[in-house]
C-alpha cells in the first residue's frame, strides 16, 4: 500500500520547491516587519486617526483566518483595481501575478502579528533604561537606537521566531491560489496516481526540518544578542 | 528541650555552607542569629524546615527524631505543621487576599473548617490592625503591611517555633518599626522564635540568646550583654565594629 519508491522519488522533486516556501515566507516577513515598524510608531506615538485605523487593522487581521485573508485579497484586489480604473486611475487588473497577491496577503498578515510582538517587546524594556540614557546626555533618538532598540530586539527574538515558523506553515494553503510551493508540489506529484500519503509524508519531513532549522537559527541569534547586552542586564 | 540539632552539614557547589552545627532551643526561648551575609544563617533556617536537605545531621523536634539528610515525607510535613516561617520577601500568596493568605494554612495545613479558619484569620488580622485590608491582594499592600500579614499567617497556625528569615531586610526604614513591634509582642507572649536578623536593636533588646554566625559556624553565643558588650572572639568584634553605627 505505502509506495516507498514513489515516496523516495517524489522527495527531491518536492524538496526542489522548498525555496518557494522559504523565499515567500522571508519576503512576506521582511515586508511585514517594515509595515509593523510603521504601525508600532503610529500606535506608540498615538498619532491621531492613524492610531485608530492601525488598531482596527491589526485587530481585524489578527481576528481572521489567513485563508480567508488570502481569498479576500485574491478576489478583492482585481475588483479594486477595476474600480480604480473606473475612477480614471490607470491600473491593469489582468495578469496580476498570483505571487504578488500571495506576498501581499502574507505581508499584511505578518505585519499585524509582528507589530503586536514588537509592542510587547518594547514595553518589556525597562523605561529607566531610556531615562538613564537621556540623563547621560544622549539625544532621545540615539537613546532609542543605542539603548532601547538592542534590548527590544533581544526580547523580540523568541516571539518573532514563532511568528516566522507559523508563517512557513501557513504558506501550506497558498496553493489554493496557484503557487507551487511544498504542499502544491506534493499535490501535483500525487494527482497522476492519486497517491497522497507518500507525498504528504515527504512534505511533513521537509516542513519539520525547515521549522527545526529556523528555530535553531533564531535560538543562536538570541544567544548572540543576549551575550551582547548581558552586562547591562546583569546590573539591572 | 524543644528543638535539638546535632552536627548539621551542608555543602553547595563545593562550598561548605554549614560546617557541623549544634543548636538547641528551649521552649519559650527567643534566639537571634546575627552575622555577615553569606555566612549560612538563612541556609540553617531553610534546613530546619526542610526547604533544603542537609548532607548530614540529626534533629530532635518535640518527641520526634529526624535524620536531616533523609527525612521522610511524613516527617517533613509533620515538622512543617508544627513550625512556621516568615520570609525576607514576605512571600504572601499573590493570588490570595490578605484574609485567604492567613486562612489557607489553617484549611490546608491543619484541615480546619473554612468558617472556623476564616474567623481565626480575621482575629489575627484584627490583632495586627489590618482587618480593613482583609480583601486586599498583596500587590495593594505596602511592604510593612505584607510582612505583618506574613507574621500573622505564621502565628495563626499556633506553631511550636516560628522561624524568621531576615524579616525586615526588604522593608523601607520607616516600616521596620511596625514589624519589629509585632515580633516583640509575640516574644512577650512566650512564643519560641529563631530570628535571623540584621536588626541589632532587636537582638539586643528582645532576644534571650544571641548567636554570632560566620562561615557556616557558630562563633560565639550568649545573652545580649555577653555577645554585644564583651565579645570573646576577634571575628565577633570585627563584625560588631563594622556595623557599629547601627546599635
Amino acid at each position, binding site marked *: 500500500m*505505502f509506495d516507498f519508491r514513489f515516496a523516495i522519488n517524489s522527495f527531491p522533486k518536492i524538496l526542489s520547491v522548498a525555496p518557494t516556501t522559504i523565499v515567500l515566507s522571508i519576503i512576506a516577513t521582511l515586508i511585514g516587519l517594515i509595515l509593523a515598524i510603521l504601525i508600532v510608531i503610529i500606535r506608540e506615538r498615538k498619532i491621531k486617526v492613524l492610531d485608530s485605523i492601525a488598531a482596527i487593522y491589526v485587530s481585524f487581521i489578527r481576528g481572521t483566518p489567513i485563508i480567508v485573508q488570502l481569498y479576500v485579497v485574491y478576489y478583492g484586489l482585481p475588483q479594486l483595481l477595476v474600480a480604480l480604473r473606473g475612477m480614471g486611475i490607470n491600473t491593469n487588473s489582468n495578469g496580476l501575478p498570483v505571487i504578488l497577491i500571495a506576498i501581499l496577503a502574507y505581508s499584511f498578515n505578518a505585519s499585524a502579528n509582528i507589530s503586536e510582538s514588537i509592542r510587547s517587546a518594547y514595553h518589556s524594556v525597562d523605561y529607566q533604561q531610556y531615562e538613564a540614557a537621556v540623563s547621560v546626555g544622549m539625544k532621545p533618538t540615539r537613546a532609542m537606537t543605542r539603548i532601547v532598540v538592542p534590548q527590544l530586539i533581544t526580547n523580540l527574538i523568541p516571539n518573532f521566531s514563532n511568528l516566522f515558523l507559523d508563517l512557513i506553515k501557513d504558506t501550506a494553503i497558498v496553493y489554493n491560489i496557484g503557487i507551487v510551493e511544498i504542499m502544491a508540489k506534493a499535490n501535483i506529484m500525487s*494527482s497522476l496516481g492519486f497517491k497522497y500519503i507518500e507525498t*504528504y509524508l515527504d512534505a511533513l519531513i521537509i516542513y519539520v526540518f525547515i521549522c527545526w532549522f529556523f528555530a535553531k537559527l533564531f535560538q543562536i541569534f538570541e544567544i548572540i544578542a543576549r551575550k551582547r547586552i548581558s552586562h547591562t542586564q546583569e546590573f539591572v | 528541650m524543644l528543638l535539638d540539632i546535632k552536627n548539621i552539614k551542608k555543602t553547595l557547589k563545593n562550598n561548605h555552607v554549614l560546617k557541623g552545627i549544634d543548636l538547641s532551643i528551649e521552649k519559650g526561648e527567643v534566639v537571634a542569629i546575627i552575622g555577615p551575609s553569606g555566612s549560612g544563617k538563612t541556609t540553617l533556617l531553610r534546613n530546619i524546615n526542610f526547604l533544603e536537605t542537609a548532607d548530614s545531621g540529626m534533629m530532635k523536634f518535640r518527641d520526634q527524631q529526624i535524620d536531616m539528610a533523609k527525612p521522610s515525607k511524613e516527617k517533613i510535613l509533620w515538622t512543617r505543621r508544627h513550625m512556621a516561617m516568615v520570609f525576607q520577601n514576605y512571600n504572601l500568596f499573590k493570588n490570595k487576599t490578605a484574609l485567604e493568605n492567613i486562612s489557607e494554612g489553617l484549611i490546608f495545613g491543619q484541615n480546619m473548617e473554612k468558617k472556623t479558619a476564616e474567623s481565626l484569620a480575621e482575629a489575627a488580622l484584627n490583632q495586627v490592625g489590618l482587618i480593613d485590608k482583609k480583601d486586599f491582594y498583596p500587590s495593594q499592600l505596602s511592604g510593612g503591611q505584607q510582612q505583618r500579614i506574613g507574621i500573622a499567617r505564621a502565628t495563626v497556625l499556633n506553631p511550636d517555633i516560628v522561624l524568621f528569615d531576615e524579616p525586615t531586610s526588604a522593608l523601607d526604614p520607616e516600616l521596620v518599626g511596625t514589624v519589629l513591634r509585632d515580633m516583640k509582642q509575640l516574644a512577650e507572649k512566650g512564643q519560641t522564635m529563631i530570628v535571623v536578623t540584621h536588626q541589632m536593636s532587636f537582638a539586643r533588646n528582645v532576644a534571650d540568646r544571641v548567636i554570632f554566625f560566620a562561615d557556616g559556624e557558630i562563633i560565639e553565643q550568649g545573652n545580649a550583654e555577653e555577645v554585644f558588650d564583651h565579645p570573646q572572639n576577634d571575628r565577633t568584634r570585627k563584625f560588631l565594629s563594622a556595623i557599629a553605627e547601627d546599635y
Partner: protein
Amino acid sequence: MKSKKRIIVYGVIAIAVIILILTGALHNSSKANSNSSVTTISVAGPDNNRPYTYPDNGKIGGYYGALLGRIDQDLKQYKFKQTTTAQNSVFVGLQSGKYDLAVSNWWYSKDRFNTYLHSTSNGLDDLRLITKKGGKTANSLKDIATKKLTLAPISTDDARYAFIQDYNKKNPKYKINLKGIGDQSAGDALKQVSNGQYDVAIYPYAAYKPVSSTSEGTKLRVSKSIGLENSYFLLNKSDKNEKLLKALNKELKKLKDNGYLGKITKKYLYENTFEFPGANSTFNTDPTK
C-alpha cells in the same frame, strides 16, 4: 560535536516515529466481515465538484449521488455510508483504507489504475474548450499548443490535470503549458478567461453550463466537443472490494443498458452524452490502448 550527534539521533527517532505512524495508518486490516449479510461500504466524494458531487445533508449530491442511490437500492447485500470531503482528502482516505470507494468523474491514468481497483465506465464526460468571445479561439488541444494560448490553471486534484499531463506525454511536439492550482471552482477559472487573464480553459460541458448564464459567463464562447472521456469508480484494493467490484460492474452494465445512466446524465449534466455520435464505441473502450 556531542550536540550534533544528539541532533542526528533525534532526527532518526523522529523519522522512525513518523514512519511507524504512517505504516500504522496504512496497515490494511481488512477484517472479515461480520456475520450479517449486509456489508457496509464507506464511500467518499469531493465536496467541491458540482454538478458531479457536492455535500447534501451529509450525503453525496449530484450525478454521483443519484447513481449511488440507485446502486444502493439495487444491491441489497451492500449498504453505502456516504461522506464528502476535500478531494485530496478523499484519496488520502481511499489509499489508507478508510474509504472503500471514491466517486466523482475520475478519468483514466495508468498510475491511478495501478494504485486502485477501478470499475467499468460509469459515465461519459463531454470535454470542451472555453474561450473569450471575440478573443483567440481554440478547437482542439493541439490548437492551444500551436497558437501558444495560455491555459487557465487546473486544480492539481482534478482529472483534467492528469489528462493534460497525459496529453503532453503523448504529444511532446505540441506540449501545452500546464499550471497547477489548489481547489478552485469552475466559476473562478472561467472568470479568469472572461477577464482576459488566460486565453482558454478546459472543462466538461457540465461544469461550464451553469456558469454560462452568469454575467461573466455570457462573455464566454464554448467550443464543440473535443472528445468524450470515460469516468470510473476507484476502490481501495482489498478482497472485500474485489467482490464489490464485480457487483458494481454488473450493475453498471445494467444501468447503461436500461438507460438510467443516460437519464441522470441528461438530468444532472445538461446533455445526454450517450446520444453523441461515437458514444457507444467510446463507452468502456480499453483506456490503456
